């Protein structure tokens, strides 16, 4: 059963120290170290495993700035067959709604597709909304937080979905979209041979003009939500930093806690 698989990936800042555009409160992406969104690495790995088992093709798509092409080339080195970058100033500033709308147009343009894999969430936005939103726009079923998937023969996929209490076993008919969690696999390293082979591989760049989209629904203008402010968690300034040898520091902390009325569990219990 040959499968057409699409993987959505995102380039995110590599560190937690981010600079924000003062006007739009969106992340300034130029000039800082970027990386593949960690969850997306698992989605890509799973796509490659499905292809290895069932045969087919893996297409990787991303919406981002031009330097994101490097990321897509890395995906090709890992074994993806085709890479498409949606890059256009008109896509910039998109919230999850506008992003999903743009990605949906790209997926439709790619043609028939059996399975779409996404990482559960992007570590810069943390909304986990794009995957489900994309599925809705494409009119296909979706499942989030998938920690295991298995294709069954009747164009269905059997999944384990992680929940707080454990996991659920859910079967979906294809085509479907799944967002995955890190428990699903261990991503491979690219090998030297494939990396060198794909050094000059083409990453297709699509602009807004290459898609059938209503320009009022893409980018900043197409967003229904706006970031009002973003604050990094501040270092609590009221704390007291205790330096020095561990033994002494531990005793100081114990003493301070006792002064505050704390008692260890082993004390103060009258049974």
């Amino acid at each position, binding site marked *: 059963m040959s499968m057409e698989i699409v993987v959505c990936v995102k380039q995110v800042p590599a560190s937690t120290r981010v600079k924000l555009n003062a006007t739009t409160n969106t992340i300034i992406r130029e000039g800082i170290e970027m990386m593949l969104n960690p969850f997306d690495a698992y989605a890509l790995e799973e796509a490659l495993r499905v292809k290895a088992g069932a045969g087919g093709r893996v297409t990787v798509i991303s919406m981002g700035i031009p330097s994101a092409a490097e990321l897509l080339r890395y995906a090709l080195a890992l074994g993806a067959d085709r890479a498409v970058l949606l890059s256009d100033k008109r896509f910039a500033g998109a919230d999850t709604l506008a992003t999903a709308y743009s990605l949906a147009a790209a997926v439709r343009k790619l043609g028939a597709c059996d399975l779409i894999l996404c990482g559960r969430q992007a570590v810069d936005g943390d909304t986990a909304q794009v995957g489900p939103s994309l599925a809705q726009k494409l009119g296909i079923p979706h499942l989030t937080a998938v920690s295991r998937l298995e294709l069954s023969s009747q164009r269905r996929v059997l999944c384990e979905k992680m929940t707080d209490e454990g996991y659920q076993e859910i079967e979906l008919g294809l085509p479907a979209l799944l967002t995955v969690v890190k428990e699903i696999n*261990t991503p491979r390293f*690219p090998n*030297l*041979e*494939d*990396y060198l082979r794909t050094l000059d591989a083409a990453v297709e760049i699509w602009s807004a003009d290459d898609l059938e989209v209503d320009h009022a629904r893409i980018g900043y203008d197409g967003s229904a939500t706006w970031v009002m402010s973003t604050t990094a968690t501040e270092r609590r300034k009221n704390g007291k930093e205790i330096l*020095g*040898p561990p*033994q002494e520091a531990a005793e100081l902390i114990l003493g301070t806690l006792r002064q505050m009325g704390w008692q260890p569990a082993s004390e103060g219990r009258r049974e």
Partner: protein
Amino acid sequence: MRLNVVTTPEDIQPYLRDESSWTGAAESVSFPQSEDEIREALRVYSQKGAPITIQGARTGITGAAVPVGGHVINLSRFSRALGMRWDDADNRFLLTVQPGMLFSQVQKGLADKEFNTQGWSRESLSAYRRFCAEGRWSFAADITETSASIGGMVSTNASGAKSYLYGPMRAHVVGLRLLLADGRAVTLRRGEQFAQGGFFRLRLEDGTAVEGRLPSYRMPAVKNASGYYIKPDMDLLDLFIGSEGTLAVVTEITLALSPTPARSIGLLAFFGDMPGALKYVQALKRLQGTQKPAAIEYFDRACLDMIRGEQLEARSHKDLPLLPSAEAVYVEFHQPTQADADTRLRQVRLLLQENGGKPAETWLAATPQDLEKLIGFRHAVPESINHIIAERKRGTPMLTKLGTDMAVPDDKLAWVLNLYAESLGTLGLEGLKFGHIGDNHLHVNILPATAEDYRRGKALIQEWARQVIAAGGTVSAEHGIGKLKTAQLLDMYGREAVKEMRALKRCFDPLGLLNPGNMFVSEESG
């Protein structure tokens, strides 16, 4: 002046050991936060004539920081960054720190561009502003145990995987401030004071001097951390780097920083047998100049089988794909541009093809995140070994890990690898070989299962030391001698040389108070 001192057994307890198997004894421990306090502690405790042991972070594995009675001066609270300077001559920043500052703290401060600059001079603050504004800078000395102190790194001339390209600690220290046992001091910069024909005269800041004869031995031409660094016309700064605390207390260290490489790439290649891996290693070692790798590391099949076994039991290493059962060679390159990095990769593909390697099965780490995973693997090997020993200790408490730290000249690399493999096989002992093969420096860890294994393992290591010394190698390439390897140092250089080392120490520390027992026993016995 009130010193911060502890004297009760419970308070002293933690400071009687380092990461070796050795436990010592002491009567008191002080935690100075200023040079004046150190000087005062030296004054007070030298009057008692008892030994004074200087400690950094106690991560050493040769017992150098383990006290042998008397007083301990623990520098863990003497740990600030003191200032920065731009060095016009060499186009780099210089960072001055106190010895208690940890290597990891220096790395983090540089990566985050964040130091506590309280009390810094105007010149330092100006250099700091420039540092924050332009470029990325690192401290290129590389060590595996990043929780070590900078002072400790100076004491042992510490090194790690990337010392293959960047050199050991010595290559990155441009200045030291030194406090002698009698309280006299000097701030010494590289290039200021030299020995002449084996005779030295170190001018101190009060106008007096320490003078004497340098030992006359010649150091082997290998990566070496055994005994004093000696050359007849040497820069006197180098006398103190690697001196394991026997000559003076280091109170300030000035480090040279280097620009962070633009592109770092790592490759883990797998081979069916050791000769195959060695051929590839020899080919990599021929890359010089701008093509020279930052590191070349080796892990034998036993190492990979150990980690692979843990992966299959699903205990750990979940971020690493399943390792094959094979010999492994890791090579890392630091290159100025992506194009240069790609050229190195093409070269390596060729070297693999020519030397029995398989480019299609060679793992490539081209992103910082993937490089981190491979660092994780490399550090996992010694950690897993410690875990196995800990388990075996429960059944047989006297068991400890038996590890070696020997290096040999280039033309003896194949010979020593065969020596290790064959002798372990003949004796039926379980051993793992891994390490800095680029410097012909491999750690062999023998894992004894019984007391008899332990006894035979110890004897085997002594036999190896004998042969390695005869082949022009060293008994300690990076860990230092400390208190555990004094017999090996004696074997390596001989009685006369060690006598000369004692005489050198007497020039600086006539009463023999500082870290006695490190490198050599205080007095010759018999």
